[in-house]
């Protein structure tokens, strides 16, 4: 089952003056349970593509369908609601809420979804357990290591039971030990729970673990390797 379908997707900056095609006519689909890495040199359009898939940015041309729903014509608040319900995000700089504890950060998404307190409690405990950070649940992000923060970020992304998780350079700020730990967790989630992950990355360790590697150059897919 396809969770993402992109058709002739383009993103053109400065269309009126000097047009720059950050993404150029990309057609792509991602199936449920894939563990996909989008790779390429800096400025090739990885983050732009991820942003359009996640409804954070709108395309200039083409269409984006997530779970069979076109998000192209949604307005801002519809997109926000859609992201909340269907897409999990993991950013490079962790991006946790600094004043909340690890547990509160995970529950934040579920509160936004108006989940009942009992379910929320159970789910956050379960996620903390699976991420191996149960002992750190009452610590604030500033009291956690980079790797631990990124695990909280993954837990937060999974809290809403999204259709897929978009991770923009999730290991860029991590040491090799933390990177391996994080990849182990994500790979396990992908294998055991069929959670779809799409990464944008430079990191060879991520690329090595990916089951599908899409290579971008100048906004164009130059290779799409299934492993």
């Amino acid at each position, binding site marked *: 089952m396809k969770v993402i379908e992109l058709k002739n997707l383009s993103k053109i900056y400065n269309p009126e003056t000097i047009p720059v095609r950050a993404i150029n006519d990309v057609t792509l689909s991602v199936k449920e349970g894939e563990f996909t890495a989008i790779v390429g040199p800096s400025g090739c359009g990885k983050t732009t593509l991820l942003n359009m898939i*996640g409804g954070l940015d709108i395309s200039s041309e083409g269409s984006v369908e997530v779970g069979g729903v076109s998000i192209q014509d949604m307005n801002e608040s519809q997109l*926000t*609601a859609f992201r909340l319900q269907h897409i999990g995000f993991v950013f490079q700089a962790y991006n946790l*809420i600094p*004043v909340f504890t690890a547990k509160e950060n995970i529950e934040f998404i579920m509160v936004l979804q108006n989940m009942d307190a009992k379910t929320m409690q159970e789910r956050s405990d379960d996620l903390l357990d699976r991420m191996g950070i149960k002992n750190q649940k009452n610590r604030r992000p500033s009291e956690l290591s980079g790797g631990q923060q990124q695990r909280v970020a993954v837990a937060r992304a999974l809290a809403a039971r999204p259709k897929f998780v978009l991770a923009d350079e999730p290991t860029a700020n991590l040491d090799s030990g933390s990177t391996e730990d994080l990849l182990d967790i994500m790979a396990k989630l992908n294998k055991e729970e069929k959670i779809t992950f799409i990464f944008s990355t430079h990191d060879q360790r991520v690329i090595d673990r990916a089951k599908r590697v899409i290579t971008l150059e100048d906004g164009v897919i130059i290779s799409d390797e299934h492993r």
Partner: protein
Amino acid sequence: MILSIKLAWKNVWRSKKRTWITASSIAFSVFFACLMQSSQLGSYENMIDNSARFFTGHLGIHQVDFWEDQIIDNSFDQQALLELDLTKPSILMGVPRLSSFALASHGDRTKGAALFGVSLEEEAAFSYLERKLIKGDYNTESGVLMAAGLAANLNLNVGDTLVLMGQGYHGVNAAGKYSVTGILKFPIPALNQGAIYLPLETLQEFLSAPNMISSYSILLEDSQDTEGMKAHMETILKGKELGVKTWQEMLPDLVSSIELDYYGGWVILVILYIVIGFGIFGTFLMMIKERTYELGILNAIGMTKRRVQTMVAIEIFLLIFLGVLMGVLMATPIILYFWANPILLSGDAALAMEKFGYEPIIPFALNFKIFYNQGISIFVIALFLAIYPMLAIKQLKIIKALKE
């Protein structure tokens, strides 16, 4: 909503130093504004109270023509009031007064003087006249109580004899010799330089105006509650050839000077508000600029802009509330102290006040409205300034924010 409140509360305390600095700047402006307005309103209340107690009352009942032509012939028989029910919970008390002018003479000195015929016992409660006694006896049956300034000008002392000459009721000659039984010292220079108080009957006899009074002065519980009471009195006095005037009508100069001073005070307050407004705006600006990335993330992961706005609005509310609360808590004990112990001026400042006819003190008013007004003013300013962060959030572009 609970999530927004929780997040806002935590965000407020995220940078404790900044929160305390901002709250303190608000607190100090509220503190100074409260103190300033309390002293302003206290001075007005004091001026109104002094003038009402010594001169006009909050309401005055007169013969209908008296206010246009304040002569002894326009006085009225106090019997006319006896049959009326002038009691009302908002009326504290009323006193009969007869006033006129005469020449006051002692030895080779003569001065013009204002004569006040009063019920000394009632006047002691109404205008606290007895408290002004600095020499001699207050209670006298046929003597006079003289203002200290006038007594000094006439070289008079307690026990001396004063000669009064003037015109009585319906043009009769009025002349008499009176023993000075007491000397009164007034803070109001006009009174201190020219007032002579006599028992009401004594002055009525001097002016050949038995039972006549110029006015019946009424003291109200609330000096501002005059219009309603005036209407009530006019109903009672219908068909009596008597009229009622409020202190605002009888003392237009006082009303004008209060208004002038009040607006002058507001100009200073507005300057203070502008200064604090810039401070608050600076905080709001930082609040948004520093956190653009974070607000973008919140929006990206599913918090609607409206919820983000609510969260920031609550942060602003908490910050302002804290500042206003601190300011009110700082100002309250000081206002309470000065309300009980007005600042007594001395030296040139006192002379300047007296020159303008005011008591040389700075009294403070204790009124909930003072705190309420300042609190509301700061909130309104903050509300106005909060338009900026609200608009900034509305116009937030996630992609741009994530690049911050």
